């Protein structure tokens, strides 16, 4: 595609429900990153993929968070039993090669609100 696409753009969910956030990276981009950004805060690293594998999952806040990537393309971030502190904007980015030496392109983000 022309850019990184994330869906939904906004999600309001009740505490305790599960949510799935989707990221469709730029075609051909090998690396895919997930970040979380709370209001007025920085970018908190969650996980990144090289192809379909995730070399570093250290940023996932708890075992309620998981992510997968299939076919070296689309990625899904799943949050189980959502809590109010999960409310944030979840940003996905992709880059052409997984060396952190190339520009990362960001999607518009999914704004998650847990009520």
């Amino acid at each position, binding site marked *: 595609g022309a850019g990184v696409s994330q869906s939904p753009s906004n999600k309001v969910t009740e505490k305790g429900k599960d949510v799935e956030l989707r990221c469709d990276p730029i075609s051909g981009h090998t690396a895919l990153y997930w970040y979380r950004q709370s209001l007025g805060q920085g970018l908190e*690293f969650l996980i990144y993929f090289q192809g379909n594998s995730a070399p570093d999952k250290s940023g996932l806040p708890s075992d309620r968070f998981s992510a997968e990537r299939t076919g070296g393309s689309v990625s899904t971030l799943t949050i189980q039993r959502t809590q109010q502190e999960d409310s944030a904007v979840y940003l996905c980015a992709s880059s052409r090669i997984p060396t*952190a030496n190339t520009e990362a392109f960001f999607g518009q*983000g999914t704004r998650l609100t847990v009520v």
Partner: protein
Amino acid sequence: GQQVMQIPQYQHVQEGEDFTTYCNSSTTLSNIQWYKQRPGGHPVFLIQLVKSGEVKKQKRLTFQFGEAKKNSSLHITATQTTDVGTYFCAVGAGGTSYGKLTFGQGTILTVHP
């Protein structure tokens, strides 16, 4: 993992004044990237620095990479209201986390007309 400290956290300037944000690392960096995030938007890549002592310019923006490759700065000359936003530096990790891109805390710039 790779960590960078970015200062200041906030900067308020009058239009026409200069602005600088700094990123510092305790370890030598292979490269550093800079991004800008407009209010309500997503981060957008500005530039990447790779060489020791490198200086790059983009119109009113000047980017520097320290001689020891442990620090970097972004300087904006004569700020304009269009410069408003959050500026982030980002660094890559090595070892088993090769490819991981970690961002500094960001500097929020406001420009008063």
